[in-house]
């Protein structure tokens, strides 16, 4: 028993060291990346270029299921984005409420014949509509088939070479599309680009736009602001330099349509269709030895509402982790496979061993420490010191994300917001982190039996000019992977 506990201790110690060294590497790599990106974002000539007529046209894919309460405002906000040439394809995925009727009335829709082939097989289409008042708008009415199926139907109908999937409840900043196209202007083969997703809870929203960014006072949404900053500002920026971004947020990612069509579009069997799509894109392009990039750029921003209750958050995190486990299992052939270059040798191993298995190892660590303490095999002061170091490291990473935000984009201008960010970055490790470990651990038990079950996301609605929107909406959704 003594030997077993000691061996377990050593394995966990090595795991801890390797994983945290890797995080330190990401942290270091994020510095030159954010430096370069903030410089490019501020370059006037690039801004001028990005407002030229010759920008690549974009199709926005907007799946909607039971979005009656918010669909009109969301689509109106999307239609007013600052971009010269784009179309919006809203897919009513067999909603049970009056989403379709709301769309028909709000945008003066009229039926047009369907004149494009079914490049990707989807659930049957009932009708195709165009709008008399908004010529950029196309609405597809189809039988219910899930979010991935809706996105595939929209891709079939899209006319343009770049597509972006947008959740109906996501608020995209007016210039975000312009900024997202920046990598496509640089003449390289860009397969996809991801932008930043930020937390909209407590922010003031006017006409579908976030006009005043705030950090929520409530702990749960507040601590998620820090999580999102950490995930986007140093995690993904660091991965840019390693060439293996595996996550382009489903709520805000721009893809080259040819590549998406070549891999058969979104996989309807996947729980996290965005992660699945990106991994398959990597696999497809690497197998064909295409020199491509899938960068993340931090300045295009979309805002999303995060769960405010522990119950909903638990379901979301369990689902995300279930999706990660399923994806890593499905594409296990890429693990340590030199054929897939840095993706196979660094990214997939990191996401499999460092992310997917992390909750298991962490819980094992707690159990072994508890057993060791109970049996007198582990020194109490040593265990406490180790825990202090582990938590301190977590705090360092979170604070680093706050530093990156402060030196680059500084969306949260008030001292009060900054103080709250620092507070949440500190408190995150005491209780909240352990809860997320537990939620993610549950995914190991659910992954094999309920791959296709979506959690319900209860939304309270955005604060509109300081007032709470009265109608709460319940709908399926995906959020940015943390």
């Amino acid at each position, binding site marked *: 028993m003594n030997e077993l506990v000691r061996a377990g201790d050593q394995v966990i110690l090595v795991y801890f060291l390797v994983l945290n060294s890797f995080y330190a590497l990401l942290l270091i790599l994020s510095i030159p990346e954010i430096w370069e990106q903030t410089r490019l974002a501020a370059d*006037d*000539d690039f801004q001028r270029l990005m407002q030229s007529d010759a920008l690549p046209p974009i199709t926005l894919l907007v799946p909607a299921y039971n979005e009656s309460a918010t669909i009109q405002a969301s689509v109106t906000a999307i239609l007013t984005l600052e971009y010269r040439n784009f179309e919006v394809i809203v897919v009513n995925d067999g909603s049970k409420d009056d989403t379709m009727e709301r769309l028909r009335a709000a945008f003066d829709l009229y039926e047009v*014949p369907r004149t494009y*082939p079914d490049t990707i097989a989807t659930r049957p289409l009932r009708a195709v509509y*165009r709008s008399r008042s908004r010529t950029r708008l196309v609405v597809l009415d189809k039988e219910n088939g899930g979010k991935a199926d809706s996105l595939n139907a929209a891709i079939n109908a899209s006319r343009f070479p770049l597509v972006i999937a947008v959740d109906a409840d996501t608020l995209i900043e007016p210039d975000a599309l312009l900024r997202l196209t920046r990598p*496509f*202007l640089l003449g390289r083969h860009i397969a996809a680009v991801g932008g930043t997703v930020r937390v909209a809870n407590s922010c003031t929203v006017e006409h579908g736009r976030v006009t005043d960014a705030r950090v929520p006072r409530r702990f749960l949404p507040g601590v998620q602001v820090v999580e999102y900053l950490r995930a986007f500002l140093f995690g993904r920026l660091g991965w840019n330099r390693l060439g293996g971004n595996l996550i382009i947020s489903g709520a805000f990612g721009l893809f080259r349509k040819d590549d998406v069509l070549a891999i058969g579009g979104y996989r309807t069997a996947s729980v996290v269709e965005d992660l699945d799509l990106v991994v398959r894109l990597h696999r497809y392009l690497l197998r064909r030895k295409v020199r491509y990039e899938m960068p993340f750029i931090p300045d295009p921003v979309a805002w999303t509402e995060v769960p405010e209750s522990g119950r909903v958050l638990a379901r979301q995190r369990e689902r995300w982790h279930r999706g990660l486990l399923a994806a890593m299992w499905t594409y296990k052939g890429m693990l340590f496979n030199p054929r897939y270059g840095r993706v196979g040798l660094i990214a997939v191993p990191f996401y499999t061993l460092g992310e997917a298995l992390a909750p298991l190892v962490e819980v094992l660590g707690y159990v072994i420490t508890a057993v060791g303490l109970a049996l007198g095999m582990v020194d109490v002061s*040593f265990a406490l010191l180790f825990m202090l170091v582990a938590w301190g*490291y977590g705090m*360092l990473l979170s604070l680093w994300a706050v530093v990156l935000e402060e030196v680059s984009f500084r969306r949260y201008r008030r001292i009060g917001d900054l103080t709250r960010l620092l507070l949440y970055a500190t408190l995150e490790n005491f209780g909240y982190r352990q809860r997320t470990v537990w939620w993610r651990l549950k995914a190991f038990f659910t992954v094999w039996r309920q791959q296709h079950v979506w959690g319900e996301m209860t939304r309270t609605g955005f604060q509109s000019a300081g007032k709470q929107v009265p109608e709460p909406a319940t709908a399926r959704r995906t959020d940015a992977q943390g």
Partner: protein
Amino acid sequence: MTSRGVLAIVALAQGALLVALIVLIVLNRWFRLRHRARVHPRVVAVNAAMQRWALGSVDLGTVLVHLSRLPVPLAVDALVSWSARVPGDRWRQLAAALRGHWWARIVRSNCASARWWKRLEAARFLAVAATSEDTPRVLTLLRDPHPAVHIAAVATLERLESAALTTAALERLPRLAPTVGAYYAGMLRRSRPVVVQLLLKMLRRAGDPALPRLVEFAGRLKEPALRERLTALTGHPDPEVRVQAARALGSYPHRESLAALRVLRSDQAWAVRAQAIRSLGMIADPTTLPLVRNALRDAEWWVRLRAALALTRFGATGQDALLQDEVGADPAARDMARLVLGLSPQALAEYAA
């Protein structure tokens, strides 16, 4: 040293780092506020001096003094923003005066910097303040591997006429992404006489892989001197060249253009047929209406779409043809005519773009 000792040291280092990060955040805020408080009045002073100088109420020396008080990046920003507002002659005086100024010399020397953002600063400066002596520097920047740098440098063509710069930009044009290429094309249009002569030579390089992009650019120029060469390229073996030639000829209403487009309308490649029909619609010669109408029965959806859109440009006769096909026997032509007749004018314009 025991493992406990190591952990204690790590914990202490972490504690120090945590405190350092918090101090860094606080200091960053404080520095920004202080910097803004110090620099903002100087920016205001530069703007005021520029405005007065543009109106002729102060001399150039005052502007230079105020500019030199600003940090270099902000001085370059001020120059870029004022360059569009000050008349050309006066601006050339400023550019000449900046040639010997100490901070302008530093910015110019950044052309060869190893850091791309320094080169970008130099390119932005030269784009508004270059003189003929800066041609070699701008040439270096035009060949820069960083897109932001050469995109900034090409804007120099707006102010500085130079055959060497125009040639360098035109040589680079075919290798650029479409949007960047379009931006370059916009800049090159200003040096039209030099560009046309160069293009006429370059369009004769039949085996050049850059030919499609050059033909595309030639089409945008709408220069009569290029028509004959473009018409000749409609027989090129590369379909991409024929696509671009077919598209370009839409801007050249001439009987030889029509004859070439008539041939391309039966091309094996559907993309060539689609562009030929589009161009026939742009020229809208009544004798080609039956040809365009016939394309509504093409096997390829995109060609049928282009044909239906082209018919809308033929006025009442085109509209009649569409209405007849909307109830005609051919299902493909019927669907397409119905789709296009159902589009609003704005949607038609978007489709036709």
